[in-house]
């Protein structure tokens, strides 16, 4: 598979179909990898999800934020299609007021840093990887 054909299967951020607080279709067609997703979750330059969420699966990591709910059991509370919606654009699920960033959204704040204009925080495949990881968080 060439890079171009892989990208052809990718859903652009503005084309993601949110329905009933879920995104049914994979954004890439390639199943997410939970191990990679775990790294993205804690990496400060990628998901940095720990900035706002505590996560018992990552006890060894210092400094878990408390801005959002604990991630423990998120895989019980939400279906993967719902997690995809929450992580791609939390505002579609929780409303405009939520502080959780849209990780695959171009509906963002003003004055975006010049080199980031039109870019999403995570790529489509990274969203799939994080969804696969969070789906493993069962109690």
């Amino acid at each position: 598979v060439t890079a171009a054909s892989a990208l052809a299967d990718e859903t652009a951020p503005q084309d993601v179909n949110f329905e009933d607080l879920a995104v049914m279709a994979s954004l890439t067609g390639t199943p997410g990898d939970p191990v990679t997703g775990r790294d993205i979750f804690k990496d400060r330059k990628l998901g940095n999800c720990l900035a706002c969420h505590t996560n018992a699966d990552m006890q060894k990591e210092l400094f878990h934020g408390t801005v959002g709910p604990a991630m423990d059991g998120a895989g019980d509370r939400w279906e993967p299609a719902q997690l995809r919606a929450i992580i791609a654009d939390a505002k579609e699920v929780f409303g405009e007021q939520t502080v959780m960033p849209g990780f695959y959204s171009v509906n963002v704040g003003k004055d975006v840093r010049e080199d980031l204009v039109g870019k999403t925080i995570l790529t489509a495949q990274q969203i799939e990887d994080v969804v696969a990881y969070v789906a493993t968080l069962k109690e």
Partner: protein
Amino acid sequence: MTVRTAAPEGHPFDEVLSGWLFREAETRELEADSFQNPGMLYVDLGAEIWNTVDGTMGKSCATCHDDAADTMKGIAANYPKWDADAKRPINIELQIDKCRVENMGAEAYKFDAADQKALTTYIKHQSLGTPVAVDLSQGELQTWWDRGKDIYYTRTGQLNFACASCHEANSGQRIRADHLSQGQANGFPTYRLKQANMVSLHNRFRGCIRDTRAEFPKAFSDELMALEVYVTWRGTGLSVETPAVRQ
């Protein structure tokens, strides 16, 4: 020292809280002990500059203002003020520049020049303990307050946060290693342990905006002056703490 007080009318909180309350015990003690507080070195440096002749007119600040302990006492607690000449708000940094240019024949400081931070720290320190009170009836200050309020609630950057996302909706929460305060201005310039240096208010504003992954406005621009008017008002009644110590 007032670190907690009833909020003024129209404030989103019932109580305004100093950033001091959100710091670790050691950091609080460091601030409160004037012998240990590392910011006091910059107060001393500021006192030296106050008495040093500069510019083409052969004057120092002391030439006109004598002993700052008398003439500057409580003054900085009422800034920003309305500058009728410039027709915009003026803060301590800009007032220093105004006197340097108009009354001393010296140049305005570059933003965040060491001497600018030291002299600002020195002047603010003369209001230590005085409650913050901005008089919004001066000139068009109320209009600038309105504009500052708009900016405070406007989301910026790829991460899509407003000041209020962190300092209002989530004040008291932890965001990674940081304990989110109300983002008050009463301690500025503050000594930041992480940087081992004084941090000016506009530097802090720019840092917080940058963290939303946004382009940030210039220091002393209309946007940041409006924000200074509004954010300072949000701390009405808190004691000036300069030099505050932060992590």
